[in-house]
């Protein structure tokens, strides 16, 4: 039984675990459910179009041409902030590769010692002291890491996100460290835009009614009624949300921490991340450094396809599933297959050497160990699927 090994280069986003969708060859990253995001877009673009069609001509002539100009600028800012929030990486933490996961497991075993049979092992928690406060770091069973402080696992996107605020369906993405300021500016500018459109709708109706009467005004500009309706309901929610986030920013807290009451003052706990100064807190959150994405979405990696040359081999049907199609990769949320471990171990050494002396990668691969060298001697990892996958792939390679 022989199999031909074909390798093709794929972008790393195609093999990322988690439930995100990617567009533009990995440049855009969003959550899976985007319906509400389309609704947001529709409402904003629709209402603004009505405003530009019905109100702006009248107001530009009778009041000032600056009114539509400012509205356009505000509209573009809102759209820029919305798209930036929705399309960027919120601060997703990549999952631990097998060696790191094993290392952490061994550390946990060492700290917990021997658990008598029948007893549940203690929860996996690491205590760290931050600015004089004890903070508990929880272990994420999906990502196989101890979550950094302020990180949380989003079940909708199936990722751990750094400085996790919340998952917002209106923007179709998580709000985390990297896109929180865009989210805040989006809600702020949207509040301003809503107030602006609402105010000028009223001004427009009043001005026109003075000349033509109230009913005729509404008949001339039917869009006004729709706009006022949308703006009225949007005002209450968006302005309220902006106010809430302004409060959170001034205290340097996340929505997640606020909901859980992490720093509510019970048991003398205080927020260790706050600078105790509103200006400093605001400056850090809104004008701090722009954090880079640690998910290399557009990097290239090798994808090994095992193409069987003989027809009657039922086992090979299961092999291409975790490797070939990008749609099935997210179905295996827990582990990279051992094949993914190979490039990661070699990449570091190869990356350093190859810059100076490019040599064909294909020759080097077979000399490296086929799978992680540790599976036989370490305690079982959290996910039982790994061993099954490893045995299927190892069996195919051996043929």
């Amino acid at each position, binding site marked *: 039984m022989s199999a031909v090994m074909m390798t093709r280069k794929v972008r790393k986003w195609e093999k990322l675990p988690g439930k995100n969708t990617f567009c533009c060859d990995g440049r855009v990253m969003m959550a899976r459910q985007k319906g509400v995001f389309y609704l947001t877009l529709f409402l904003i673009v629709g209402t603004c179009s009505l405003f530009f069609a019905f109100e702006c001509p009248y107001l530009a002539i009778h009041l000032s041409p600056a009114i539509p100009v400012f509205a356009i600028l505000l509209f573009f800012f809102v759209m*820029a902030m919305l798209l930036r929030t929705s399309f960027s990486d919120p601060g997703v933490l990549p999952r631990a590769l097998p060696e790191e996961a094993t290392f952490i497991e061994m550390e946990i075993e060492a700290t917990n010692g021997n658990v008598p049979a029948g007893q549940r092992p203690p929860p996996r928690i690491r205590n760290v002291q931050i600015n004089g406060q004890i903070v508990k770091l929880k272990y994420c069973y999906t990502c196989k890491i101890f979550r*950094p*402080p302020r990180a949380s696992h989003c079940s909708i996107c199936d990722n751990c996100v750094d400085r996790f605020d919340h998952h917002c369906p209106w923007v179709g993405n998580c709000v985390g460290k990297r896109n929180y300021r865009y989210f805040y500016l989006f809600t702020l500018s949207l509040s301003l835009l809503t107030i602006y459109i609402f105010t000028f709708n009223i001004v427009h109706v009043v001005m026109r009614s003075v000349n033509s009467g109230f009913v005729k005004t509404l008949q001339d500009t039917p869009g006004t009624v729709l706009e006022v309706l949308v703006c009225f309901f949007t005002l209450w929610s968006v302005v309220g949300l902006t106010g809430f986030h302004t409060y959170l920013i001034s205290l340097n807290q996340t929505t997640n921490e606020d909901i859980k009451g992490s720093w509510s003052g019970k048991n003398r706990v205080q927020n260790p991340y706050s600078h105790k100064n509103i200006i400093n807190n605001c400056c850090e959150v809104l*004008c701090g*450094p722009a954090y*880079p994405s*640690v998910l290399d979405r557009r990097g290239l990696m090798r994808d090994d396809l095992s193409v069987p040359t003989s027809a009657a081999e039922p086992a090979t049907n299961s092999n291409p599933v975790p490797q070939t199609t990008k749609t099935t990769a997210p179905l295996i949320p827990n582990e990279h297959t051992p094949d993914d471990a190979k490039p990661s171990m070699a990449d*570091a050494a190869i990356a*350093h*050497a190859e810059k100076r002396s490019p040599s064909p990668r294909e020759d080097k691969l077979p000399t490296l160990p086929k799978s992680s060298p540790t599976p036989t001697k370490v305690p079982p990892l959290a996910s039982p699927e790994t061993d099954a996958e490893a045995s299927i792939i190892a069996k195919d390679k051996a043929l």
Partner: protein
Amino acid sequence: MAETHSLQDMRQQAAIAAKVFIQRDYTNGTVCQFQTKFPSELETRIDKQQFEETVRTLNNLYAEAEKLGGSSYLEGCLACLTAYTIFLCMETHYEKVLKKIAKFIQEQNDKIYAPRGLLLTDPIERGLRVVEVTIFEDRSLGR
């Protein structure tokens, strides 16, 4: 050039004996800092001072990237005025420092770690969570 050959030779001949992961140090908050505690697995391979010096320099570089001060605020405000479109053409301060860090790690690997059969992995490739130190088996370097 001797270093190039030793890295390639290592790849061809050396098997990976173990990997050590230097964890993050959160005592000063969520700023990116790594623990300078010397791992016991490296005791036979490298000088403690040397290793701590490497990690300390790395920490200083990350602190420089995440520094909150006049220049970072200026960058943030200017970017906001352009609706952050300026980041489509310009590199952020953090990205510039990351390039410095990548160069530093490569330098350290060439000069200090590769001759001792060790390899540092840039933390950005591990999500800024750990500094991965790969320990290669000693036989290929026993001359």
